[in-house]
C-alpha cells in the first residue's frame, strides 16, 4: 500500500525531464559519435531529455528537433524551479503515521537524518536478519548467468598524484 502510494507520488523522472547542455553539442541522428548530425546545440541550450541508451540521451531541442547527445553533457534543473518542494516524502510520512500504530514504524520511516543516526541504538536482531539474506558466491554467479551478465576484464583508472 505504502509502496504503491510512493510510486504514484514519485515524479516520472524518465519522461521529458528539462535539461541544459553544458557545452556546444551536436544533436545526432543515432546514439553514436559517427552518426549524422541533426543540428548543433549551443552551450546552455535547453532541451527535454526523453530516454537514455548507454552513454547517450535522446532529447527534444527547443525548436522541436529530436536527436541524441552525450548523457554526460546534460545537466538537469535541480534548483527547485518547476519542481515541488519535497518529492512527496512529507505526504508519505503522514500516510505512514496514520496507517500504523506503533512508534517503531514512525522511527523507521524518518530514521535516516543526522539526528536519528546519532541517537540510534544498535539493533542486533535486524543485523542477523540482514545476514540471513546473503547470497553465496555460486548462487550469485548463477543469478548473473540468468541475466546474461558476463564478467569482463576492466582495469581501475590510474591514480594521479600518488
Amino acid at each position: 500500500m505504502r509502496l504503491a502510494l510512493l510510486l504514484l507520488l514519485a515524479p516520472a523522472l524518465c519522461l521529458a525531464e528539462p535539461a541544459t547542455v553544458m557545452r556546444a553539442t551536436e544533436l545526432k541522428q543515432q546514439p553514436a559519435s559517427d552518426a549524422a548530425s541533426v543540428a548543433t546545440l549551443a552551450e546552455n541550450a535547453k532541451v527535454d531529455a526523453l530516454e537514455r541508451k548507454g552513454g547517450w540521451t535522446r532529447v527534444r531541442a527547443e525548436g522541436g528537433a529530436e536527436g541524441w547527445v552525450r548523457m554526460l553533457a546534460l545537466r538537469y534543473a535541480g534548483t527547485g524551479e518547476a519542481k515541488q518542494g519535497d518529492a512527496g516524502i512529507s505526504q508519505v510520512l503522514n500516510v505512514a503515521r496514520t496507517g500504523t500504530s506503533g512508534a517503531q514504524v514512525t522511527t523507521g520511516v524518518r530514521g535516516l537524518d543526522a539526528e536519528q543516526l546519532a541517537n540510534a541504538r544498535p539493533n542486533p536482531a535486524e543485523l542477523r536478519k540482514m545476514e540471513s539474506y546473503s547470497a553465496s558466491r555460486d548462487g550469485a554467479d548463477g543469478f548473473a548467468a540468468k541475466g546474461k551478465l558476463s564478467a569482463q576484464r576492466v582495469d581501475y583508472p590510474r591514480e594521479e598524484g600518488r
Partner: protein
Amino acid sequence: MNRLRVLALCALCAAPPAQAQLNLNRLLESASNIGKAAQEIGEKEEIEIGRDMAARLLGAAPLMANDGVQRYVNNVGRWLASQTERPDLPWRFGVLEAPQLNAFATPGGHIFITRGLLERMKSEAELAGVLAHEIAHVLKKHHLKAIQKGAQMELAGTAVSMLARQDRSTGNREKLLAAGTELFSRGLDKSDELDADRLGVVIAARGGYDAYGLPSVLQTLQAMNPQDSGVALMFKTHPAPGERLDALERMQPTLDAHAAQPQLGERFAANARAKR
C-alpha cells in the same frame, strides 16, 4: 617591573613544565598508538567494526520488510563483489526502510541502500552502479582510514588504540562505534567519494553491466531539488551530483567500452518492485 617579570616567569616555570612534559609524552604515546593502530587493524577487526556500525545503522532504520527484494539486492551485490580484489569478505547487502535517498557502506562488507533510492532507480545496472560505489569504499577501506584520521581526536584515538591492543571491553567498543557511526552523518573526504565513483564504474563494468548505471543515478539525483528533505543528508555528505558527473568524464573511455552491456530494466522492475 623586572621583578614582576621574573616572578611571572617563575610562576610559569614552577608547575607547568612538568605538566607540559607529561602532555607531550602523552601526545607522543598516542601518536605512536595511532600509527600502530593504522597497521594493526586486521581483517577480523575490520569486519567487527563494520558489523557494529551496521547494527547501529539498522537501529536508525530497519530493513524493508520484503524478503524477495532483500535477496535480489544481495545477488546483485554479491556478484559485483566477486569481481573485486576482496571477493572473500562476508559481503552482505540490505535495503533500509527509509524514504530518504542514500546508500552506506561499513568496513568489512556490509552495504546498505535505502528504499527511497531504490524506488528512483530504473534498472539493475543503476542498482549495480550504486552498490559498486559502496563496494569500492570497502575495498579501499575509506571508513577505516577516516576513523584512524579522526583518531587525532581523543575519543577515537583511545578507541583505535584500544582496538589495536585487542581490548574488547564494552566501553571501548562503544567509543569506536561512536567514531564510526559519526561518519554516516559527517561523510567521507570528497576525494574518497570521487574515487569510489570511478572504481564503481569499473566494478559494474566488470560485472557485465551497462557502465552508465552510476552516472544515470547521479543524473536522477541532480534533477532533484537539493532542498528536498529526502536528499538533505546525502547531499551534505557527498559532493554535488553535478560535480561527480563532471569528474566521471575522465572515465568516458571505460564507460563507452561497456555501454552496450545489459541494463536489465525488466528484471529490476520484476524484483525490486515486488510486492510483499
